[in-house]
């Protein structure tokens, strides 16, 4: 560094720089790290003696909590899988499908908005669309399709997944676009010259290169859905007992009758979102080697 060659270049001393970053670290410790660690510690504490124990974690395996985790994982996985597939197809269609150029900025802008349009208002929008008296429900009934008669209900697994897709698909589009842009035209041309069909190019070249990005993005979508609560709460109340809603009820009124079991529940959530985010970052780092 040039600062080493000319030691007294800046008048602000080194401790001044440390003072400048001080508030950031103080904030991080007080409002990010300490609260989280405090929960993690609580998850390993006995509720009566405060001594170290694994019993809180082991008690997560009771049927009702296990059911919550399974439901959360299923909804997050379904919305991540469909979000990734549809988002990828949409991005490929607009970026590489030979469609008019103005579609690209339109899709990107809309994805920026829609991936941020979540929570309570999104639940309202889907009630007005696919609720019992929703616009699309009534429209379909007019043409003879009764979706509620056929067993559809917005306030179920399928309805919630369909609602989550409204922010999952746009997020996928935003995350996977750089990877698709990273596919160089020369690779396609080279494959063509060597006699490969378009199908072979996609199967043997493009898809293997995109694969880490697709997998990573899916994991990001999974974590994104797993931590979500506002949309589900506004849509289904506590009808679908996913982990965030169970945790919400626990914070509100200690429904588990055991604060430390609540901390263990939070630890489980953190573990799942943490691991999927880590895997996403690892896969993105791998994928970036191609995009450069």
């Amino acid at each position, binding site marked *: 560094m040039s600062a080493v060659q000319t030691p007294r270049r800046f008048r602000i001393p080194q401790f001044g720089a440390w003072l400048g970053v001080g508030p950031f670290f103080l904030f991080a410790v007080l409002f990010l790290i300490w609260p989280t660690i405090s929960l993690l510690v609580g998850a390993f504490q006995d509720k009566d003696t405060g001594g170290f124990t694994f019993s809180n974690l082991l008690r997560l395996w009771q049927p009702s909590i296990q059911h919550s985790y399974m439901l959360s994982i299923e909804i997050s996985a379904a919305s991540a899988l469909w979000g990734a597939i549809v988002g990828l197809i949409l991005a*490929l269609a607009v970026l590489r*499908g030979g469609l008019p150029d103005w579609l690209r900025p339109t899709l990107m*802008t809309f994805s920026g908005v829609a991936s*941020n349009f979540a929570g309570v208002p999104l639940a*309202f*929008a889907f009630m*007005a*669309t696919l609720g019992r008296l929703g616009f699309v429900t009534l429209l379909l009934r007019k043409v003879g399709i009764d979706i509620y008669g056929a067993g559809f209900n917005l306030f179920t697994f399928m309805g919630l997944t369909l609602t989550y897709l409204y922010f999952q698909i746009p997020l996928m589009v935003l995350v996977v676009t750089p990877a698709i842009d990273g596919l160089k035209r020369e690779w396609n041309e080279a494959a063509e010259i060597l006699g490969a069909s*378009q199908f072979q190019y996609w199967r043997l070249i493009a898809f293997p290169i995109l694969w880490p990005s697709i997998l990573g993005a899916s994991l990001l979508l999974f974590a994104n859905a797993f931590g979500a609560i506002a949309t589900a709460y506004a849509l289904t109340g506590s009808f679908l007992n996913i982990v965030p809603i169970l945790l919400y009820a626990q*914070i509100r009124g200690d429904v588990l009758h055991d604060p430390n079991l609540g901390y263990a529940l939070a630890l489980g959530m953190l573990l799942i979102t943490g691991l999927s985010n880590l895997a996403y970052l690892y896969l993105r780092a791998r994928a970036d080697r191609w995009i450069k």
Partner: protein
Amino acid sequence: MNGTKIGAWIAATLGTLYFLAPLIATFEFSLRMRRGEYSFDAYREVFASGDFQASFLYSVVQAVATIVVTTLIVVPTAYFVQLRLPKLRGLVEFITLLPLVIPVIVLVFGYIKLYGSSSILPLTATETGSDALLMFGYVCLGLPYMYRSVETALRSIDVRTLTEAAESQGAGIVTILFRVILPNIRSGILSGAFLTFAIVIGEFTFASLLDRPAFGPYLQLIGASRAYEPSALAIMAFALTWACMGLIMLFGGRTPSAAGKR
């Protein structure tokens, strides 16, 4: 027209249908309040409601306070990390990514455990304390986006030369940060600020669990008790998100994404 192109058109059309249908449906529903004809009655009801005005104002004030505090924390940090403490870059980046990894519901649980009424620092015991705690929570939510946009903006200017020039003119560190650096990275701060605003304005989990009279819990309450107003509010929320994104592109020229805000 070849097969690829036809497929692409089908995908784009289906996508457009899926994304437009809820918007059209919600808008149509919000106009149905008066029997037999379309009207803006639902919007009028919402705007006239004292709870709407109070909760919206509360959330706007929270958002502005959040933006100011986030800027004050992030700008000096990103500046000193770039100029004097490059060794800290990895650690600082890791910390700014934490709010994307820790679910909001877990973080607020930690706050209530740590700052609840029976703890060492009982912030939730007073109104002001709770308001401050909510704001610090929102600073966490905005941190990843603010840090990234400020850092990108700092990279695009010559921080070293600007600092040396200002110092040779006798400027102190506060003057350098606020009168030299800050104006040069204004676009980065603004795009981070608008994204933070979009996240904070309708936030539900933090506000609800800290019992604050914010816009998010108000929305939820209306959803549970009214028929047409929720649709009007959803349209307004969507328009607000559009406005924020529009302003970001106006100032920053990039497509923002806020993964993990849910």
